[in-house]
Structures are given as structure tokens and as C-alpha cells.
């Protein structure tokens, strides 16, 4: 670890204790240097250890510590809009991707309530592994930009702390409203390919990839919402379908067994939901909206304002 990196850490730690302790930056750096260069402790662990030493001296708890990783601003991911800024973020690792170069230790997607952003962690930075689905406080990361898209880079001075709380990830969720004007084929009680990672919907007991297989039952609705100006295709998964129709997977299987026909399930669902108005929210996937939440629109609508407008034309 280079001198300058240690110095940066030391300055940041010094900053954090400036109100409580009369400590010297050189002293901090020396402690770090011993841990990192003599005992070969990773920088983030060394920093943690040194900070703990000072916390003890000051009689403080860790959460009393202000200033984050050295006076950086803690930013929401959606607010990252300039390159080369040093910031702190609190985020969940949404996805890890396969690094395409040896220089990259980990690459993937971070998310917080406001959105998601790509992150890169360099191999030479010698940082602990991030795990998918876990939430972290990442202090001292640098923003970057490539062709108008922003990312954050973890570096030698970055500290990684796993959080007890889970940071919820907001997505590019949309809200659509309209009449459900169609329920497409492949809706109702369906069978999926049981092969690992496949989950294709079977056609006449066949998977287009794995041939004839013993399918697994699932519920799904592919519907079309239409507001008179735009059409939106919406997919309801098992949970959403149950909420929409009140029919559980078990009930659907029984219905199909009684009728010796799986299509009765979709027919029954059609009768209950087609031609009614709904509001659906969820992330988009290609041309589809994946229903996270839905509501049947049954409330009264106000005609007064429209009537005034119609009379005035």
C-alpha cells in the first residue's frame, strides 16, 4: 500500500476524531503503516482497527462517529451526476457480474431507494468480497462516467462495512392504468420446464430447449391494459395472479383436475377480470410491465370538471 493512500486514510481518521481527541495525523499513519506493511492486514481492516483504538480512547461508540469516511457527502445513487467525485454510499449489491479483466476483482450493480448504479472493485485494491443481496456502507468511492452513464469505483481507500439493515432497492418502476382488454394465450395454469435455470413455458408438454419433460405447474397472466391512447402488456406472476383473481395455484390445479383440462382456469379468470379497470405498478422488462402491485379501480370518478370543459368548447 502506497504512502499516499495511508496518508489519506490517516487524514480521514484524524478528521473523524478531531472534536474528541487531540491526535496527530502522523501518529495515525504510523499505526496504519504498522498494521498494513508489517502485519499485512488489509487497509480496510487496519483502518477499522485503528478507529476502534481511538474510539476506546475517546470512550465513544462507533455510531457516534461523524463524518463518514472523511467528510464525504453521503449521496443517493440517483444523485450521482458528475465524474471524479469522492462520495459515500449506502447500498445493496443487486447483482454481481463476471469480471472480464483480471484487474477487476468484482463488478456489478448497487442499488438504493433511489435507483441503481454500476460499481467496479479493482483487484489491486485488496478489499473484502461483496456478497449479492447484502447491504453495505461504502465510504470513499469515486464516481466515474462513461458515455453518459455513471458508475462508482471502489479503491484502496474505500471502507466497506456490512449493514444490519437492508437497504431497499428502488427500481425503474412504472404505473399504468387502463381497461384489461385482453388475456393472451399462455395465461392461467401453465407448466414450466423443470431443468435448472430454464423455466420455459411448455407447449404441449414440450420445452423448446429440453424437449419432452415433466413440467412444473405455475400460474401466470399475460394481459393487455389499454387506456384508449396506449396499450401496455402486463405479466402477473403466481403471487400477482392470485391477488388479481383470488385463485391459488392449488385451487387452479384442482379446477383443472376436475375438468380434466387446464384451460378452464384461464376461462374462469377471464370472466372475473377482463373488461375491468386496473392500476398496475412494477418494473419494465422489455415491452412488458411485471406487476408488483395492482389495484382494481372501483372508485367513483368525478365528471364535474370535464362537463364544464365540454360545455365551454
Amino acid at each position, binding site marked *: 500500500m502506497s504512502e499516499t493512500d495511508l496518508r489519506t486514510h490517516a487524514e480521514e481518521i484524524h478528521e473523524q476524531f478531531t472534536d474528541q481527541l487531540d491526535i496527530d495525523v502522523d501518529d495515525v499513519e504510523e499505526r496504519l503503516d504498522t498494521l498494513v506493511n508489517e502485519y499485512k492486514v488489509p487497509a480496510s481492516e487496519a483502518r477499522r482497527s485503528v478507529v476502534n483504538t481511538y474510539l476506546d480512547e475517546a470512550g465513544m461508540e462507533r455510531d457516534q462517529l461523524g463524518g463518514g469516511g472523511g467528510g464525504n457527502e453521503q449521496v443517493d445513487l440517483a444523485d450521482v451526476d458528475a465524474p471524479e467525485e469522492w462520495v459515500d454510499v449506502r447500498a445493496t449489491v443487486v447483482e454481481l457480474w463476471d469480471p472480464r479483466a483480471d484487474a477487476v476483482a468484482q463488478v456489478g450493480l448497487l442499488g438504493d431507494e433511489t435507483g441503481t448504479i454500476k460499481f467496479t472493485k479493482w483487484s489491486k485494491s485488496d478489499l473484502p468480497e461483496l456478497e449479492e443481496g447484502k447491504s453495505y456502507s461504502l465510504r470513499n468511492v469515486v464516481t466515474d462516467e462513461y458515455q453518459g452513464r455513471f458508475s462508482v469505483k471502489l479503491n484502496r481507500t474505500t471502507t466497506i462495512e456490512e449493514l444490519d439493515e437492508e437497504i431497499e432497492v428502488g427500481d425503474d418502476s412504472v404505473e399504468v392504468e387502463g381497461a384489461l*382488454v385482453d388475456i393472451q394465450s399462455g395465461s392461467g395454469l401453465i407448466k414450466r420446464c423443470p431443468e435448472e435455470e430454464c423455466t420455459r413455458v411448455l407447449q404441449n408438454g414440450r420445452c423448446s430447449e429440453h424437449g419432452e419433460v415433466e413440467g412444473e405447474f405455475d400460474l401466470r397472466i399475460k394481459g393487455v391494459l389499454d387506456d*384508449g391512447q396506449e*396499450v401496455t402488456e402486463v405479466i402477473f406472476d403466481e403471487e400477482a395472479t392470485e391477488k388479481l383473481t383470488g385463485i391459488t395455484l392449488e385451487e387452479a390445479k384442482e379446477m383443472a383436475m376436475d375438468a380434466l383440462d387446464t384451460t378452464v382456469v384461464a376461462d374462469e379468470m*377471464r370472466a372475473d377480470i377482463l373488461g375491468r379497470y386496473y392500476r398496475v405498478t412494477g418494473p419494465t422488462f422489455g415491452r412488458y410491465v411485471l406487476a408488483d402491485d395492482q389495484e382494481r379501480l372501483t372508485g367513483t370518478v368525478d365528471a364535474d370538471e370535464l362537463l364544464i370543459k*365540454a360545455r365551454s368548447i
Partner: protein
Amino acid sequence: MATTPTREVARRVFAREFNDASYTFKESDDDRAPVYVLLPTGQRANRVFLVGTLTETEDVGEDSEYWQGRVVDPNGDTFFMYAGQYQPDAASMLRELEPPAYVSVVGKPRTYETDEGDVNVSVRPESISQVDEATRDRWVVEAAERTLERIRRFNEADPEDPDIDEYIQMAHEEYGDDVEPYRQSVVGALESMEDAAEASAD
């Protein structure tokens, strides 16, 4: 979107305007190209969504079942729909439903020229569902909103303008400039909702 043909939006239109939409056209010479009716307020329609009161059903078929349904909008104007063996779901709904009932209908506009040379406009239903009054009311307000929007665009467009919307231009040519009856059907439909609201408040 380039790979999948876009699904046609279901237009919201009151029966008076729908029944006047007798001019049909295609956008290409392909036999299977969709047929559009031209709404007099200047928009093409290949699909409609309507909600109203089913007042009468009748099997008018000679050799096989051919069901006629009459669905009335708040102005008392009637949508006619016909479903036969090629629309089995809709036909069985018309067979089974007991009028009067609120129904929502998704369907394609169809025109038919009578022996007298009149053009009748009807709906070939894709689906018919029995619905509640709240759904009907929501549709009335929605149809009023969409119709007013079409009227506004129609009125703002200048027929002399070379960049005029082609369907507004077409409507001027096929039906003329008078869209006042359709504004009246919007006012009438909304007033009927007000009356109903007052009546239930009393």
C-alpha cells in the same frame, strides 16, 4: 418494438359518433392489412372498448346461431354487435346474459352496406364481460375525455394547413366540418352521470 407488430389501441367513442363512422380504409394493399373505420372527429379505429347497458339479445341467424346484442350508452344511443361461430366466447355470452345488464365489450368495428345503400356500423366482439355500475361510470368519463380531446384537435386543425394530421384531413373530406353532435353526446353523457349522482344523494 420493431419486431412485434404493435397492438391497436381500443378507442373510446360514444354510440352516436361510432354509428356515423361509415368510412373504412386500409393502410396497405396487403389482403390481411387491418381495416380501419374513420371516426368523424378525425381518428382511425381498428378496435373499440365500450361499456353500456345490454338491453336486448336475439339470435338472428338462419342456419347457425348468429347473436345480435344491443348495448345502449348514457345518451340512449345504441351500439349493435354481432357474434357467430367465429366468436364463440362472445356468442355464448350473448346467449347466456339476461338483459338488462352492464357489459364491457372489446371488439372490432365492422361496416355493412344495406340494400338501400346505407352503411351500418357495428361491433364484432372479441370479448364481452358482465361488469358493475362503477366500471360503466368510469368508461363514460373516459369516453367523454377521449372524445373531447379528439374534438379539440379537430377544431384546432386548419384544413388548409398542408401539415394537418392525415386522419383529421380525411374526416373533413369524408364527413365535413361539423363535430357539434359529438360534443353534445359528451355533454349529455356527463349530465346523465350528474343526475344519477344527485338522485342517489337525495
